[in-house]
Each structure stands twice: as C-alpha cells, then as structure tokens.
C-alpha cells in the first residue's frame, strides 16, 4: 500500500499549524472584513459621516437658526455655496446656512437610524430568543402574533399615529421602534432553534441551569453575529423610513431637521435654480446609506464565508 508521503506530510503540517495558530471565529471574521475592499470603503464613508455629524459644527460660520439677511430674497443669485460669506453649502430659501442644517440633519437621521435599530436589537432579540428557546405552544402563539403584526401596512399605521398624536420626534421613535423588531425576532428565533439542539445547551440543562440563565449566558452570546449584521442593515432602512415620513411633512418638525426633510425642501425648490439645496443633503444621505449597506454586507460575508 502506497501512501503519498508528501501529502501526508503536508496534512500533518496543516493540522499541526491549525493547533498552534488557532484563530477564533472573531479574529477570522475581522481578517476577512479588513480584506473586503467594499466593506472597508463603507467603513471609511461611515467614519466621515459620523465625524461630519459630530464635529461639523466647529467649522460652521453660521448657526442653523440664524438667517443671513444679506442673501434673503435673492437666494438663487447670492445664496450659492461660497467660501467668502461662510456658507460652504449655500443657504436654504430662508437664508439659513445649509452647512449647519446639513450637520443637524445628519445628526438626527443617524440618531433615528441607530435608535430604531437598537430597539429592534433589544426587543427582537429577547422576544425571538424566548420564543425559540421555549418552543411549543408559546412559540406558536408568539410567532403568530408577529405574523399578524407583519401583515399590517406599517407605513400607513405610522402616518396614522403621527397625525393623530401630534408630530413629534418621540412619536417618530416610538412608531419606528414598534415595527422594526418584528423581522429581527423571526431571524433570532430561527437561529435559537438551531442553537437549542447543541450539546452544551443540553449539558447546561442537565446540570440544572435555569432557563433565563441559559438564554442569557449561552444563547444570546451565540446570536451576536446574526444580530449585528441585521442591525447594521436595519439602520439604513430606518433612515429611509424616517426620510419618507419627513418628506411627507409628518416627521421631524422645524426648527429641527433631518436629511429627509432637507431633501424634500431641496426637491421642492429645485425649479428656482437652487440645486445645492438638493445636492448636499442628498450627497450625505447617499454616503450614509452606502456606508451602512457596504458595512452590513461586509460583516455578513465576514461572519459567513460560505455564502458567496
């Protein structure tokens, strides 16, 4: 019997190397993420947007509420982007500095996206993990409830809520948070169902660990991958939802503003030749969405290398 000694040697080496330089799942994922050009590009975009939202106001010459009376009424001729009068992005049709307003809009849009996503993470994860772990009738009941809620045309209900209970940013957060966790809970439940059958869960149960502790100590840490990816991809969706609502004039109200509200203003006044009013908010909107989409896709590829 001839055994290819060279191949055996390389196999031995490979297994040995694996033992010596064993990498954790997370180290592996980080390496794949860093190698992914699109994901790194997205991360750079996100860093730029966050820096802009965080530190943009230090560079602004005007506050977001101040009206520049020297351009008021002649916005189309004098209100364009210029370094001379300090309106880097021009002014809006009332003569307010668009740079400062874009900074503010980016802050609010990011906040809506991140808070909506955070609600989804907390509520969706707990709900899905509970339903998946206990299974049986409770699971059936909880998931039917989610099915029912998913069948409701949420955009219409959100508008209904905003109209009836006043247009405030709190209401917007509540409305966005109410709907965002549904999809998350389904995904978490599916993952929990597969985790439940693993030996370590069985072992934990066998030595008498109570269910809440099993969920907290053994199930939740193993859900981090799925939850992170989904939460990242949820942020741009939340931003899109908010901008849609703001576009209808039901979202963030003056003097606060969001990227969606700014874009809607820009789209309305575009016929007067004030293109910058649409262009700058839209640019930051697109950069933000691109960033989140790319990072989310990159995270998914990094954590699940087979799916490509």
């Amino acid at each position, binding site marked *: 019997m001839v055994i290819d000694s060279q191949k055996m040697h390389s196999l031995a080496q490979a297994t040995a190397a694996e033992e010596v330089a064993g990498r954790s799942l997370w180290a592996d994922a980080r390496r794949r993420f860093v190698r992914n050009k699109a994901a790194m590009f997205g991360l750079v975009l996100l860093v730029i947007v966050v820096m802009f939202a965080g530190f943009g106001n230090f560079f602004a010459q005007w506050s977001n509420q101040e009206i520049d009376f020297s351009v008021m009424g002649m916005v189309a001729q004098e209100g364009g982007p210029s370094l001379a009068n300090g309106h880097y992005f021009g002014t809006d049709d009332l003569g307010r500095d668009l740079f400062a307003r874009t900074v503010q809009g980016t802050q609010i849009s990011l906040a809506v996206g991140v808070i909506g996503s955070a609600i989804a993470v907390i509520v969706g994860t707990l709900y899905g993990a509970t339903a998946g772990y206990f299974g049986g009738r409770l699971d059936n009941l909880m998931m*039917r409830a989610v*099915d*029912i809620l998913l*069948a*409701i*045309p949420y*955009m*219409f*209900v959100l*508008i*209904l*809520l905003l*109209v*009836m*209970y*006043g247009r405030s940013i709190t209401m917007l957060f509540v409305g966005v948070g109410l709907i965002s966790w549904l999809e998350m809970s389904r995904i978490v439940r599916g993952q929990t169902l597969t985790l439940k059958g693993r030996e370590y869960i069985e072992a934990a149960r066998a030595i008498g660990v109570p269910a809440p502790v099993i969920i907290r100590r053994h199930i939740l840490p193993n859900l981090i991958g799925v939850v992170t990816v989904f939460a990242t991809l949820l942020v741009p969706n939340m931003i*899109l939802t908010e*901008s*849609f609502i703001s*576009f*209808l004039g*039901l979202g963030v109200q003056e003097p606060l503003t969001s990227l969606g509200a700014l*874009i*809607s203003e820009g*789209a309305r006044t*575009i016929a007067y030749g004030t293109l910058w009013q*649409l262009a700058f908010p*839209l640019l930051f909107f*697109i950069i933000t*969405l*691109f960033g989140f*989409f790319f990072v989310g896709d990159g995270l998914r590829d990094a954590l699940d290398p087979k*799916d*490509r």
Partner: protein
Amino acid sequence: MLVFILKRLAIAIPTLLLLIVFSFLLMHAAPGGPFTQERQMPPEVLANLNAKYGLDQPLWQQIWSYIWGIVAHFDFGPSFVYKDRSVNDIIAQGFPVTLTYGGVSFLVAVLAGVTLGAVAAVKHNTIIDYFAVGISIGAQVLPNFVMAPILVIVFTLILGWLPGGGWRFNDPSYWIMPVIALSTSYMASIARIMRSSMLEVLNSNHIRTARAKGLPGYRVIIRHALKPALLPVVSYLGPAFVAMITGSVIVDIYFSTGGIGKAFVDSALNRDYAVMMGVTILVGALTIFFNLFVDIIYGWIDPKIRY
C-alpha cells in the same frame, strides 16, 4: 392543499378584524374629535352631528356597526370632511389608478429584476456582473422621492418627451414616469436576491450533472437553474407588493396621478379619520390576501413543501 389554504384563511380573518379594531380604537383615542374646529360650535349642532355619524353610541356599538358595515355591505361609512361623499366614493375613484400603475410597476420590477439578477449570476465576475450590481446598489440607495423630481426635470422640463403629471387610462405615456419611480428600487432588491440565489444554485450538484451530461448552456439555466433560484424571490414578492401600494403616496404627490395615496395623504392632513381608516384597512386586506396567494404559489413551485 385545501387544508393549508383554510388554515391560512383562519389566521387571515382574525388579523383583518384586529386591524379594524386597532385602527378604530386608535382613532377613538386621538385627542380632538373630527368636528373640533377653531370656532366653537353650539352644543346642539355638535350633538346633531355626533348623532348623524353615530358618534353618540357606546364604543363597542360603534365598532360593531363599523365592522358590520364593511363585512355585510362593503361600506366604509361617510367621509368626515366631504359632506357629499362616502369613503367608498373616494376609494373607488383612486383605487383603479393605483392598481394600474402599481400592477405595471410590479410586473416591471419582477421581470427586469429577475432578468438582471440571473444574467449577473450567469456572467459572474465579468463586466456585466459588476454593471448589474452597480445598478442595483445605486437604485437601492436613491429613494423614489428623489427619483421622481429628477425624472420630471429630465423628461418633462429638459427633453419634453413625457407629460409631467396627471393620469389617463388610455394614454400609456402618462404611465411611464410613475412606473419608473415606483419600480426601480424594488427591481434592485429583486435583482440582488436573484443574483445570490442563482449563484448558489449554479454551484449545486444537479447543475453540474446537467452540464456533465451535455445539455446546452441555455437549457441548463432555463430548465434547471431558474426555477429553484426563484424561490427566495417569490418570498420577497409579498413585501414588494405592499411597498408598491405604499410608494403610491409619493407617486401621487409628484405626478398628480390621483391614486389612493393621494386620498390617504389628503385625509391625513385634513384629519379625515374615516378615509384614513378605510384606506388602511383596504391596504391591510390586500396585503393579507396577497401574502396568502404568495404562500400558495410557493408551495406550487417548491415540491419540498408539504402542507
């Protein structure tokens, strides 16, 4: 199969009832009645108005007669703002328009998205693939309320090819821009889903077998790869359909098409609760039955599913 459909219907009907009751309670709990105005009405007038619209009855009776009206006579009641029109009139006016451009957009999104995704997967890692992925990412990031004004500027103001708004059933040139604005981002999503599922199918064993036994390439793709790859797309159709109806709000505002989205926004701004609820319930019912329909199609395509 029949049992499955009946089971799904058994969920669909309570869902619908829940939606009706939920939106009714929401409306009832809202601060300010439908007749709250800046100028105070004499209490006798207010009482008469409340009596006319049945608002003086106890809450459960109001809900019951509302549900009964919908179920028995398909009657959503009178509008609170337009004295001479019922909710049915308003819906009947806008709904055919929404259904027409929504349906066309849906077809365009599905056909173009599936084709784009399939071609991208077959030509994986070529310039065609990159082009298709580029289009789909771009279209997903550009929301339809940005696309609509840009379309108007390009096609109406600059080129002058298409009418900038309005709606005529017999003139498809009025349909083009609403359909583009509505379908693009869903086409992009469908293309992305189709591409990744098609890639997975093309790497699977049965495709290798089909190629190995010498079937021509197009036949392998059309007969053996397309059908299993369509499954994830089918499960996306439900949400896509709902989004088409919701997106009609933007289309109606921009292109003045006068569809149901217009009725909804107008009623939201006028606080015409009856119309808002009517539209919400109608869209909810459509959603539920469309999802049911998609489930049935899913079972028909995928023989692995047993009821």
